[in-house]
Structures are given as C-alpha cells and as structure tokens.
C-alpha cells in the first residue's frame, strides 16, 4: 500500500500522472511533460514535491558521537545552520544509504534520507545507537518542496524576507516564514541548479506548494515530477541510491570518496574500507555517441570484454543527447575510453567522459 504525500490531492488537481515511487504515490510528470519540466528548471524554475523524503532527528549529549560513528563524513567541526552530505556504510563498507545532515545546533541533528530507505535507515541507526541519544523518525510530520532553477531566489523573495534566505550552498535557515508558514529553508537540491528545499509541517504542505507556484507563475515556474527530477539529477551526475549506490557498492567505487574521512577515529565500515584498498571499479560518465538510449543494467564492453555495467541512463533534454553512468573496472575508466553498451542485444557506441555532464554556468 503506497502512502500519499500531503500534497497528493493538489497533484491530481494539476493533472499529474501518478505513479508509485519509494512507497509513495507521486506525479512522474504533469501535462507539460518531462522535457518541458526539465527545461523549466534549467532556464527558469520548477517546483517538486519531495515530501516522500525521510526525516530522522538525532538529539542528546552523544548525538555527535553517534552521527560520527554511523556516517563516513566528519561532523566534528560544523557550524549550526550547515548541511553536510554523507554515505552511511554497513560493516562491509557497502552503502546503506546516502543522506544529508542538517546541524540544527549542538546535540541536535536533522538527517534527510531517501524515501524508500527511511525504515531501513531508522532501524539501522537505532540498532547502532549508544550513550545518551534519542532518535526519532519524524518523516510523517513534514512536508517538503524543492524550488529549483535560476529564478528560485527571485520567487522566494516574493514570499519571504530576502535577508532570511540562506545564501551559501549547503546552509539553511531554521526558523523563517514562507508566505506566513513556519519553514526550514536550505540551499540544497538534486538538480544541479541553484535552489531551495523548504520544509514545513505536513498539514501546511499543500498551502506552501500552492503559494510558491502562484508566486512564480509569471516567471515561468511550473510543477515538476519525478521524471524531470531523474533526468536533472542524471545530467548533473548526482548519484541515486539503488543505482549508483547499493549495499554492495563502496563510496570509493561510487566516486564519493570526498565524503569519507578515513582519518576519523572510527565509523561503521571503516575497517572493511581500509582492507579493500583502492577501488577495483569506479563510477564514470558515458556519453552515448551511437543511436539509442542505454538505461540501467546494460553491460559495457571494450571489444568483446565486459568491463562493467550501466547504473542509470537517459536522454538528457538540456544536452539533447543520451548519457549514462556506469561502474567500470578502474583500468578501463579513464576519460576518453571508447566502449560499447549492450542495449537489448544491440551494441551502441559510447565514450567515457568527465562528470558532471552538465554544470551550471
């Protein structure tokens, strides 16, 4: 049985095409279609309902010690109002989930996790909790909207006090009003574009979504679905759990080494990662040069030798060609390598290119 986000009824009213995703019923697209929605975010602005994301609150005197043990990144030196990305590993060094930690204040951390992993993550975290710490899964209490695109700031200033908006990437303002609704607003997103993620109480989620859409209408703001969310994150080469990451893929393989601090005293998975040494395979970008689109789980070859597998792939509306991400053996992963991808029995040509595919100017 799929859950509905607090904004569900409004998606239906807007003509959203509803599909099950991560245990929720969400719009994959609206009447405008994925390409128009994708382009709106690159050129103007788009609004996403991301209320399905999970929120876990960790508080208590040992909150920091728990966060540092659970996650691979280091949270020791961190100012209030900052966000920090991290994988969470299992004992074997595989990835349980990837998430973002918001430091509300000392002894109080808000962790945003993937919708489909919320229950698994919460069980994992509580199973490894120690000392004076309290962990709460508050996912059902929160609604979340993502306003993304070059005009996101201008739209926000119409419904809130501009000076309260977080300026720097990966910072947030904990208590501010957006159209009169108490919200937490962060300078984060999953599109490769500037923008905000806005959290409020679940019961005011629809009101927030409506007023943001209304505020940006004349600037070209449109609601966007999961389809555009996926093409945008792929174009920006942001990894997605279950694709570029899994409990059998290490952070180094997923090219997330920047968020693994091996000089920390300890964290779950550290020992296994030390023993593994350099990654034998690596996440790379593929530009499809032949005709066709490679999706996930297509075998990648150099001549007749299999060198890896794609993890995600799509046609990129902004770039106007197909791309894929793939896990390739490290020796075949250098930029410029020519490969072919087996797409339903047909080989199509591709080239290893540097990531991201798209970078905001």
């Amino acid at each position, binding site marked *: 049985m799929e859950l509905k986000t607090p904004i569900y009824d409004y998606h239906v009213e807007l003509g959203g095409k509803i599909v099950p995703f991560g245990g929720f019923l969400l719009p994959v*697209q609206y009447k405008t279609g*994925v390409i128009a929605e994708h382009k709106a975010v690159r050129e103007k602005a788009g609004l996403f309902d991301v209320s399905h994301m999970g929120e876990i609150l960790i508080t208590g005197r040992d909150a920091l010690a728990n966060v540092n043990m659970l996650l691979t990144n280091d949270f020791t030196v961190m100012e209030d109002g900052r966000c920090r990305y991290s994988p969470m590993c299992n004992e074997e060094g595989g990835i349980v989930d990837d998430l973002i930690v918001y430091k509300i204040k000392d002894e109080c951390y808000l962790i945003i996790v993937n919708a489909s992993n919320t229950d698994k993550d919460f069980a994992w975290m509580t199973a490894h909790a120690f000392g004076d710490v309290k962990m709460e899964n508050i996912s059902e209490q929160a609604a979340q909207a993502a306003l993304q695109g070059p005009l996101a700031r201008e739209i926000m200033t119409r419904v809130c006090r501009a000076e309260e908006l977080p300026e720097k990437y990966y910072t947030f303002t904990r208590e501010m009003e957006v159209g009169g609704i108490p919200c937490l607003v962060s300078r984060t997103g999953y599109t490769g574009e500037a923008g905000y993620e806005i959290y409020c109480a679940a019961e005011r989620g629809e009101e927030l979504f409506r007023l943001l859409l209304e505020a940006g209408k004349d600037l070209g703001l449109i609601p966007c679905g999961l389809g555009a969310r996926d093409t945008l994150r792929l174009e920006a080469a942001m990894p997605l759990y279950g694709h570029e990451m899994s409990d059998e893929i290490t952070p180094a393989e997923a090219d997330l080494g920047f968020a693994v601090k091996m000089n920390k005293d300890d964290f779950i998975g550290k020992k296994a990662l030390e023993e593994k040494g350099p990654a034998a395979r690596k996440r790379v970008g593929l530009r499809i040069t032949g005709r066709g689109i490679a999706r996930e789980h297509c075998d990648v070859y150099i001549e007749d030798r299999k060198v890896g597998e794609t993890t995600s792939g799509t*046609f990129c*509306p902004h770039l106007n060609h197909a791309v894929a991400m793939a896990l390739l053996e490290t020796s075949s992963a250098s930029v410029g390598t020519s490969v072919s991808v087996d797409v*339903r029995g*047909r080989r199509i040509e591709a080239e290893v290119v540097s990531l991201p595919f798209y970078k905001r100017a």
Partner: protein
Amino acid sequence: MELRDNVKYAKTHEWVKELGDGVVEIGITDFAQDALGDIVFINLPEVDDEVVMETPFCDVESVKAVSDVYSPVTGVICQVNEELADNPALINESAFDAWIIRVKDVKEHEDFLSAEEYETFANEEA
C-alpha cells in the same frame, strides 16, 4: 484521447490504416503516445523486413522508458517513415499522422477494434 474513425485499432495500441492495393500504414495511438510521454528516440526497422502479427517491429523510447511497438499484421515493410528518426516527437504532436511503417503483402491481421471499441478498451486499461 484523440480517436480517428478512418483507422482500425489493435489492443497493443497501434492504429492501422488501409491505403489500398493491400498496403496498410501503421502507427501508435494517441493514447499510447500520451502514456509514453515525450518520445526522444525511435529504433526504426528497414524496408523489406518482414513483420509478424503480434510481434514487435520497432521500439520507441520516451524520456521515461522504452516500449515495443507490435505489428498488428503479417507482411513485408515497403516504406519506413525516416522523418521520425530525426524527429520522433512528431508522434507526440500528432500520433495519427506520424505513421511508422507501410506494409505490403498483408497475409494475416489481428481482430481489429473500432474507434469506439478501442476507446472503451483503453479507458479500462488506463
């Protein structure tokens, strides 16, 4: 959903139009293009390829997914709409004008649905 009375429909969401002299034109329905979303690639067959009833002859990719297009008839392809290779979005713009293949020597065909029957069928699937 747009429907046209001058074509017949297959349950796999293709339309078939008789052009005379035993030649038929095949495309996908408006309902199908709407379900697929923005079409960005079409893997076209070639002239002289044989098509077999209830068997895929081509695939179309939208941003979201790939989908096979089934032939509602058995015969031989005599023409391919090459324009679609460069501009597959023509199918989204007007599914009934954007034919994919023309087939000659039709030996066999499915039990087609009328526009009205197809509408009922598609609504039940939706």
